[in-house]
């Protein structure tokens, strides 16, 4: 019984925040997703990354291991997704990014944080960073047909990670006033993103439900399978193992919708995949947590 309450304590914040977002959109209160996204990406996220890495003591080995495991996961996602898309005779640009990229930021970070504390959050950020690099370069490249390295190098998140890792490796701590400020600003990231996720779930135009449900389920099953396999192959233990599995098993990333929208790919089906996989993972997440903790 205690375990169930503990699990509920981990997933409830995610549900409640997304629920508040849905409610916010339902009662028709104004929500400027663009403004929130830009606040989060330009100010909040870099601060969260800096502050989190200051709070934990990770060895370069542990970070490297998770980074390598992450790359392996993404490689496996890519190969499996291409196989499925070929098998079903679909077009690669519309479906590939949404199958590959899990929702590591708005959903993965809070789940890892509440399940594993600051260490879990830091490792989840490592996973997320590689996902973000992938989303910005490969994802956009697949959807647009071109590669954009410049865009990646201009992303404040990437700068923050580089700085955080350098500080971690050189064992430097930020001055107290600076740490306080970035810690405070970083606090907005997770709730703001979850509420924004709730708002966007309600705003998505969902279509082609049969196929998108099928693909959404595939993303979740593939995520869990690959996560467990990679964690096993790398002999990961403790927080690192849990983070790799949890992050891999996240539903379809909302950013896939933005890409689909930007490049006029099947937006309604991508939206369907996001809604279906997010909905299912709300139910399956407690069981997954039970299996990895």
């Amino acid at each position, binding site marked *: 019984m205690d375990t169930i309450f503990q699990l509920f304590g981990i997933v409830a914040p995610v549900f409640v925040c997304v629920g508040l977002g849905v409610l916010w959109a339902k009662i028709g209160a104004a929500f400027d997703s663009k403004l929130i996204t830009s606040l989060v990406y330009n100010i909040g996220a870099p601060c969260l990354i800096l502050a989190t890495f200051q709070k934990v003591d990770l060895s370069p080995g542990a970070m490297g291991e998770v980074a390598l495991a992450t790359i392996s996961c993404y490689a496996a996602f890519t190969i499996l997704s291409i196989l499925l898309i070929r098998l079903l005779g679909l077009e690669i640009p519309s479906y590939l990014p949404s199958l590959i990229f899990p929702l590591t930021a708005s959903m993965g970070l809070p789940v890892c944080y509440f399940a594993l504390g600051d260490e879990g959050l830091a490792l989840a950020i490592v996973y997320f960073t590689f996902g973000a690099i992938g989303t910005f370069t490969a994802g956009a490249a697949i959807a647009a047909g071109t590669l954009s390295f410049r865009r990646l190098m201009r992303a404040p998140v990437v700068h923050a990670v580089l700085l955080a890792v350098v500080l971690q490796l050189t064992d430097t701590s930020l001055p107290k006033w600076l740490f*306080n400020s970035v810690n405070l600003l970083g606090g907005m990231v997770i709730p703001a993103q979850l*509420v924004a996720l709730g708002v966007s779930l309600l705003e998505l135009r969902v279509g082609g439900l049969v196929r998108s449900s099928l693909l959404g389920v595939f993303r979740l099953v593939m995520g869990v399978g690959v996560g467990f396999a990679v964690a096993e192959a790398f002999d990961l233990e403790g927080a690192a193992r849990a983070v790799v599995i949890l992050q891999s098993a996240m539903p379809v990333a909302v950013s896939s919708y933005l890409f689909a929208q930007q490049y006029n790919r099947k937006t309604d089906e991508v939206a369907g995949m996001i809604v279906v996989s997010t909905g299912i993972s709300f139910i399956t997440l407690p069981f997954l947590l039970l299996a990895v903790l």
Partner: protein
Amino acid sequence: MVGALALNLGMPCLVFSSLTRLNVSLTAFAEMVGAYAVVMLCFLFVGLAAIRSLKVPAHTYLPIFTSSNTGNMGLPLCLFAFGSEGLAFGICIFILSSIYSFTVGWSIYAGRLAADVLYNNPLIYAVALALIFMLSDTSPPDWLANTTELISGLAIPLMLVSLGVAIADLRVRRTGKIVIISFIKLVTGFIVGYAVGDIWGMEGAARGVLIIGAAMPIAVHNYMFAQRFDRNSDDTAGMIVISTILSLATLPLLMYLAL
């Protein structure tokens, strides 16, 4: 919209989470609220005296004296100066000051008694819920504690951002009178806070937080109220900007005396 998110989601969660998590004892809560109530009563007299002698309308200028920016400016200061203990004390002050502003302050601007704002304000429910846990000496269940802690992270950054944006959007017209009023507000705020803390025999973080809470510049929501009821909103804007800028200059001195 950012302000609405901070006020309707962030602040209630921050209030609930701080009051329950930081184990503010009921006596400390009562002491802080009591001391700040005395402070606000003094503000009321100062305000009435200033309004009489400057011959300005009470519906615009009285709330200026009584409501200080204990939220988006006071809370970060209390947090950084005295850590989480200071934040908890600061929140006690913020609760009293915002309940006052949204009921009495609002009614003064509206020119009528407005009780509906009491039950329309999520903050009231958060305080009530927190008081239940404080009175029964139980801690909230994990899921509630985690959720409110998470959402409370929104409050201070978003409020600071909206304060900055509000100040950037404000336009100042007449000076003279409004400079004098802003100056009176800040100076009397500090003196009243210092005196009440002394007479009450407060010490440490409680004393510092009381002084900070009393010496804060004019609250930004006065601008929203003034605009809503068409009460010289440009003057109000001017006073908010001037008192905020003045306080930025005097803050280091204030922090030195409060610490």
